């Protein structure tokens, strides 16, 4: 069966098309989310289907997930990103027991059961601290690009983590440290350390168990990966494309729910599905 998973996140939108019989990802896409979710969802599905050499109509079952999951009118089911990330990560890393996902505007920790299902989870989306947005703010304040920040921090290694709970306080702490003459590499390493620590404090309530997998766009920063390793005291696993685990999980779950339907029911679903073609400028 050909399935699709669409993950509309606050910053990035991702799609995966899967052939469940071959257990192969046929194509995937990552684009920036903007304000218009509905047209974006169709656009990314069409784009990904094209890459796979298919048309949208050939997709048997579609699952929508992410922050904007309610804005995918043609999705056959909408499932939370927690369940989808768990599914996607478990597929890539069967030995995973704890997932830490750092998104653009939220962060989550998910505990997996031995069967690979969600055992428990915890989320933070109340404030910027511990999310990609915080790093964005620091980058703008210091007028240093995200990749430069990452490079600089990696040079420093170990440093006293920034302690503040609040993103605004943390920024002020960073600025104070710089004005005291602390080298910028040390300050940034401390920032990543504080960042990891804040997320781990949240995750600790789940009783972190190995293997730990990091996902989400923000974890592409090597400095953040290093900070997590330091704070945890052991290595972490990172998918090749950390942004796609949600969409992958959604596509896999599409296979599960689509698989429960008969061929007639699937055909009827495909016929009923309405894609309104809209031009995206």
């Amino acid at each position: 069966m050909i399935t699709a998973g669409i993950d509309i996140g606050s910053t990035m939108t991702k799609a995966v098309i899967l052939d469940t019989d071959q257990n192969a990802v046929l194509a995937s896409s990552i684009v920036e989310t903007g304000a218009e979710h509905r047209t974006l969802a169709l656009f990314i599905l069409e784009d990904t289907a094209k890459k796979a050499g298919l048309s949208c109509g050939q997709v048997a079952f579609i699952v929508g997930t992410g922050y904007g999951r309610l804005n995918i009118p043609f999705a056959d089911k909408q499932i939370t990103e927690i369940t989808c990330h768990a599914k996607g990560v478990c597929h890539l890393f069967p030995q995973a027991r704890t997932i830490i996902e750092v998104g653009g505007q939220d962060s989550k920790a998910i505990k997996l059961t031995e069967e690979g299902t969600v055992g428990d989870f915890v989320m933070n989306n109340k404030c910027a601290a511990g999310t990609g947005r915080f790093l964005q703010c620091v980058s703008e304040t210091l007028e240093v690009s995200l990749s430069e920040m990452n490079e600089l921090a990696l040079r420093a290694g170990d440093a006293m983590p920034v302690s503040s709970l609040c993103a605004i306080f943390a920024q002020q702490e960073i600025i104070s440290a710089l004005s005291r003459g602390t080298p910028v590499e040390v300050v940034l390493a401390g920032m990543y350390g504080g960042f990891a620590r804040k997320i781990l404090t949240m995750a600790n309530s789940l009783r972190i168990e190995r293997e730990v997998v990091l996902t989400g766009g923000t974890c592409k920063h090597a400095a953040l990966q290093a900070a997590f390793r330091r704070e945890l005291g052991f290595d972490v696993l990172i998918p090749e494309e950390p942004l796609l685990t949600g969409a992958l999980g959604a596509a896999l779950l599409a296979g599960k729910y689509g698989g429960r339907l008969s061929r007639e029911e699937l055909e009827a679903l495909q016929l009923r599905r309405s894609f309104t073609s809209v031009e995206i400028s």
Partner: protein
Amino acid sequence: MAEELKNTKPRTGAVKTTQTCHEAGQLIKKFNADAVRALQEGSPVAWVMVSSMMEELCAAMDISPVFTENYATAAASRPGGVKMLEVAEGDGYPQGICSYARVGIGHAMLRQQCGCVQPDWPLGGMADPTVILGSTNVCEPRYKWYQQLRRYQNVPYFCGEYSMMRLQSGVDPAEVESYVIAAAKKEFLRCKDFLVKHTGRKFDESRFMEVVLQGERTRDAWWKCEEIRRAVPGPMPFEDMIGCFPIGFMYSAYPESEAFFNKLYAELEERVAQKKEVGPVGEKYRILWGWGIPPYGYLKLFNIMEEYGAIPVFGTSNTCYGKYTHDDFGSFTDPVERYLVGQFRSTNHGMAEANAMHVTQDVYDVIRFAKEYKCDGIVMNGTPSCRFRTIGQMAAIEMLKESTDIPILIMENDMADPRAINEAEIRSSLESFVQVVDTAKRRREGN
């Protein structure tokens, strides 16, 4: 924990002025060391809430007290305090609840994980308790915290029901005193029975009377020091008294405490005689720390004030528990009654006046102390994890404006959670506030 000690941040504690005050820390260390030694010798140790009607009882029964609230204030400015907070939060305790309790619970959780306290913990950790004594007096964390300690440590817990010892607005203390004391006395004796049972120590009434009288003497000596601080220039800033008042508040039963305050008084007398000023630029403005627990993770804020010539000449944080009225307790022959009446009347010392003015007792204290200590400005601090010492500050400002026009500043920084302290904001708000105080003072003096 070792990596915590690589502290690249500058120190956050306050630099003290008076000489005697440096001995306060030593004395408290000694009391804590006594508890550790007691434990090693097989003698009982009690974890106690302050102002819980049980500190003097422990002293009279030779049970070493450990004050866990006080421990949290020390942990707030030391590496390892944050770790304890994080550990407690990891078990599901929300960040909004009392930070003293989160430190205490984190300590208990770590102790359970490690098997015993570790030397690199703040102050080397707290000595294991034989019993824990909570109280419903003052606020909820004071009985819920100890209830939760038992989740990690199997230890007998007595929770004293004293919620009426500190009255609410509008209640007339004279109307309720007799039945509150009657009930409190029964509770006190139940606590005594509990301690006898679980520590094997005896309770001797005459010994307790000695302790009560010692307590009265210590607190009187403490209050003499508070009252001499009315002098202009003020001889002792609030950050010094923060270091000292635990001795009067928690350890009043010990003769060393009385001796300490007598020594402090002598130093203050001399400072007053010589008109010695506090701070690098002297005393330009007199500030009242009007309300709120100070942020123990950044007591340096008082030195910052002093840089601008604003001297915190007095603070009300603990006046509501510590001050004995000057009533004559001689008519009470029963030491338990004498003790409890003393506690009740000092805690509610301003209720009658406050009720007459239709303000809360806390507001009344601010009004009178601002006058008595000739203050030019009032600083308050709201602590996000403490309802009891924060709610009402904004209202207080409105009530105060009816009787005073001296400027008031409210800050918001937590007492024992250093992550919820905004250092940059403290400096900038104090700097601006001093300018406001200066303008107001000139206006009052007709300049």
